[in-house]
Structures are given as C-alpha cells and as structure tokens.
C-alpha cells in the first residue's frame, strides 16, 4: 500500500481521508479549539505538535467522538461523521494511558474489537495471532496488562487498535510514559508499523524531535489554533512564525525587522544589528516581522556569505561533536547562539574577543512576530 519516503508527500493529495472544516470546541466561554480546517491524507503519518494545553487532546477527542464539537464538520472518506456515534466511527484510538482492560488477558484485549462485532472463532484467532505477531507479543497472549512492561502495554494497545483494520489510527502522546531509550525504540517501531500497514496515523505529541523523526507532515498548534502545517523540513527551514521557529530548535530571533527592498526573489531587511538579505519573497502582512537564523547557519569568516554581523564572544562550550558559542551584539546586547561541528584543530575564541559572523540568505527566514 502507501509507501513513501520520510518527508515526502503522501499520495492522493487531492483526496484527503479526513477533512475537518471549521471545527471548534468550547468549554463554557473558553475556546479550547478555535474553528480550524485540517486535511489528513490517506496513508500519511501526520503529527499534531504543540505545547501542553494547546488543544491537541481536545482536537483528537473531537475527531474520535469523545468530545462533541461546538461547531464545524468532520468528513471521513467523503462521509460526514460529525454526528456518528463513537462505536461506529471507522478508526481506532491508542490512548495515552493505554486504557488496557485490566480484567482481560493480552489476547482478550486485542480481540475485543472483533468480539463485539461477533466475528467467528476461527477468523478471530487468526487475526489476533497476526496482530500479536506484528507487535511481537506472540508469547505474552495469556498475560494480564498488570504483568507487562510499559513497552509491552504500548504494543498491546497498538495491536488492539489495529485489529479491526481501521484506515486511520489516532494516537494521543502514546510514548509520553516511556523512558528515553524505550521511547526511541518505540518511535522506530511505530513508524515501521505505520509504513508497512499503510494505515494513516494521526499522532499527538509535545516533543518536537519526536514529531520531526516520525512524521510525513506536522501540524503545529498553539492556543487552540493551527500555527503552521508542513513537512518537518518545511517547518524547520521555512517557519512562518517566531513561535514555530523557536519550537523547532533554538533559533536566533532578530527583531524588529523592516523590509526595505524586494528584488529578484531576495528581500532586504533592516534590523537593529544591520541590514540583511533573505532568500524568497517577503511574507504577507509584513508588520511585526522578525528574522530567524538557526544556530548552525552561522559561520565564521571563510566563504564570505552575504550577511555579516560583528559579535562579541560570551562563552564557548564544547559538547562533543558540536561546539556552541554564545555571542552578544555590542550596541543592542541582543544575544546569539552559534552551533558548529567541532574542529579538533581549531583554537576556541577567547571570551571578549570580537568575531565576524556570517550567514547565507537561504539559511534564514522572515517570520511573523508574537501575535502569529
């Protein structure tokens, strides 16, 4: 089925599997989700990324049917499902706390979806065997959830959600409870299951690196609204707002920023620390702009890129493969961070010394300011 490269575009671009239009959720007078549109393509791994409290869970619960939306429509595969009862919706959920049934064995848990549909014993057993095989739990079918490790519970929850062969699975921070090493392992595992099964994954996390490594596309949420949707590369290299830029790696933000010229797809901007060239056209609504430059975009001296700033070294920290230099602008006391591959031959600059730091017009982005 759908098999594609990480970062590439999912197939069937013109026919979204899930179509959300003007969906809003209010709790009393509080807008947990401001009316928003979202398309999820068939077979893609789409991650909803945002800080805690930004409405990720609420959005997912509205899609699953646990939360009645205040307004708006949800279509799945061309059918309106906004009013459809939870148990009829053609997709399944992996819960953050796994929600495994404590009085049932792993097998009974996994087979539950088939059992309530009255699937015959033979067919049921075959399907459960194959699901347990996919998640590598063939040996543990007779155990109770309380006898499983966190990762095994996680796999059980996934097998249970996959048993009815849904076209889409919703996952709400499924890895949040696992420790770092297991988390990384489960990320790879989830991704490979998703790729092999071709099931659309709608995944929620607050972890930027998790979203980046797993997703085909990421939808960044902030205060109940969608801030930006795009591939991990899009969001990393072409953030539209200061919020997205700083969420994806610590960006250097230079503001305020004023456009003085646009020519040949290069925009010139004036900032308190100098005038710079930025590749690409100016963004619309050009007020409240800021310039975001990644720490690794900065280079010293050689190559002479178009944009240059003179900065004073504050400190240098060696963290193995990389060296991070903290810098300060003399007049504005704006702070900068530069990250570079560690060079065994280099002599680190002394604090207080002045460096000329350059960056390429293609390696920075004009972003909207605070009220994104």
């Amino acid at each position, binding site marked *: 089925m759908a098999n594609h490269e990480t970062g590439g575009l999912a197939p069937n671009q013109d026919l979204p599997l899930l179509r959300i239009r003007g969906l809003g959720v209010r709790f009393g007078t509080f807008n947990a989700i401001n009316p928003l549109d979202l398309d999820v393509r068939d077979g893609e791994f789409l991650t909803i990324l945002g800080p805690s409290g930004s409405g990720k869970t609420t959005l997912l619960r509205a899609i699953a049917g646990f939360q009645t939306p205040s307004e708006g429509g949800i279509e799945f595969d061309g059918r309106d499902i906004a009013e459809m009862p939870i148990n009829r919706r053609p997709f*399944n959920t992996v819960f953050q706390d796994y929600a495994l049934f404590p009085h049932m064995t792993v097998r009974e848990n996994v087979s539950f979806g088939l059992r309530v549909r009255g699937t015959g014993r033979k067919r049921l057993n075959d399907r459960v065997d194959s699901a347990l095989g996919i998640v590598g739990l063939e040996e543990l079918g007779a155990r109770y959830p309380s006898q499983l490790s966190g990762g095994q519970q996680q796999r059980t929850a996934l097998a249970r959600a996959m048993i009815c062969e849904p076209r889409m699975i919703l996952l709400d921070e499924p890895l949040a409870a696992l420790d770092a090493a297991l988390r990384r392992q489960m990320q790879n595992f989830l991704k490979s299951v998703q790729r092999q099964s071709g099931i659309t994954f709608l995944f929620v996390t607050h972890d930027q690196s998790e979203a980046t490594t797993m997703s085909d596309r990421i939808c960044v949420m902030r205060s109940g609204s969608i801030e930006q949707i795009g591939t991990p590369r899009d969001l990393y290299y072409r953030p539209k707002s200061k919020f997205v830029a700083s969420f994806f790696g610590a960006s250097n933000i230079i503001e305020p920023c004023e456009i003085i010229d646009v020519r040949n797809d290069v925009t010139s901007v004036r900032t308190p620390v100098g005038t710079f060239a930025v590749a690409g056209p100016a963004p619309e609504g050009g007020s409240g702009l800021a310039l975001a430059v990644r720490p690794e975009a900065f280079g010293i001296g050689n190559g002479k890129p178009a944009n240059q700033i003179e900065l004073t070294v504050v400190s240098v920290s060696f963290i193995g493969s990389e060296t991070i230099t903290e810098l300060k602008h003399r007049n504005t006391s704006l702070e900068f961070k530069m990250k570079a591959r560690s060079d065994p031959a280099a002599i680190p600059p002394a604090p207080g010394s002045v460096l000329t730091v350059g960056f390429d017009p293609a390696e920075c982005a004009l972003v909207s300011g605070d009220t994104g």
Partner: protein
Amino acid sequence: MKRLRLLDVSLASVSFLVYLALYLPILLVFVLSFFSMRRGRVRWDTFSFEWYARLFSNESLGEALLNSIIVGITAIIAATVIATLAALHVNARPSSRSARMLEYVIFLPFLLPPIITGLSLLIYFREIGVSRGLATIIVGHAVFVLAIIYRIILTRLNSLSRSLVEAAQDLGASRLQTFRFIILPNLRMPLLTAGILAFALSFDETMITLFLAGTDGTLPVRLYAMMRVGFTPEINALITLILGFSIVLTVVFAFAWRRSGGIDNNRITRI
C-alpha cells in the same frame, strides 16, 4: 531491652483481657447450646443437640429466620439493581442536576432516624391501602440498604479509568456491551461486598421492620417479642447458628477477596 519486654507483656495481657471480655459471652452461648446448666454451673455430662432440635420444631422462630432471609435477599436484589442504575448515571454525568438529586434521594433514608423512615412508610402504605406483610418489609429494607450499596458501587465506578469505557466504545462496543464486558466484570467484588454488608444490615434491622411487619415478622422482631416472656435455651442454638453462618461468610469473602486481589491491587495502582 528489659523495659521493652515488660511493655510487650503488659500489652499482651491487656489485649488478652479485651478479647476475653469480647468473646467470653459468645463462648458461653456456644457452650450452652450443647449443654444444660444448673445453679450457675454447666453440667458437662448433658451434651446433646436437644436445643437445636427444639429450635427447628419451634415454628415461630424458624419462620422468623426464614422471613429474615427472604426479606434480606429480595431487598438486596431490588436495591442492587436500583443502586447500580443510579450509580451508572451519576458516574457518567456527575455534575448534572439529576445526579445531585439522586444523591439526596438515595441518602436521605440512610441518614434519617429509622423510626422516621419506618413511620413514614407505615403511613404511606396505609394511605395507599397496602396491608403490612413481607412485601412492605422488603420495601423498607430496600430503601434502607440502597445508600450503602449505591456508595460502594459508585466508588468503584469512579475509580475505573474513564478511558476504559471510551476504549471499549472506540473499539465498537455498544453501551450494553460496554457494561457487560468492561464495567460488570470490574464490579464483581464491590457487588459482593455490598451484598454481604447490606444483608448484615437487613438481618438485624429492627426499628423500620417493627412498623412495617404484619403478622409475620423477621427474626429480630420475633426475638424482641420473645423478650417479654423470657428466652428459652434454644435461643443459644439460634445464636450459635447465626455465628457459624457469619464466620463461614467471612471466610468465603476473605478467599474471594484474596483471589481477585492479585489483579485488583495492580489495577488500583496502575490507574
């Protein structure tokens, strides 16, 4: 070291005395159900089951015991059904107005003095023309034990993670299937607890029953009536039987608790 041992010894003797005070009367009753007594001394050569035989031929006591059991079981079944439905509703919509109403309605008879509950029911039954009998006692007991059953079930329901119900529905279960496959299995222990507790409450409930009993009363009412004419020794046999029954019940309960405990404990710590 020495002071500590002294403390231990005195503690042990105090507990021994307390247990003696608690269990000596019961032991005496037990002994007296098999032996006769003369001039304040047990005659050990008189061992017999005579009092038990007399108890079972004493129709009024036997009938009263049977009534107590019928009333207890019927009232518990009725109350459990109502309490479960009410608890399910309150658990699903805890802040709705109907939920708050239900809580008051269920708890009022439990908090009211039994004399008031009994009297109100008596007046009510008279007004609607229902004559006193087992049925009226059953209603009285059901109302009385409703609150405790309801509370135990609701506590368990509230401790069940909400996402369990959501997960079941998400996997395609109807409301009925969710109840049958997810909720009910997790209510087994609380239902057993509530049933036993409620039966104990019903078994010695006297005040409400006094108002609602017609000619056929429950055991406590019957014993109450016997007090005026004085007890015959078969009362010892009766108490011994009830004691034995309670002990068996406690043991069964403890076993059931331990057997489901393995899973139960983990469940509580996990959720």
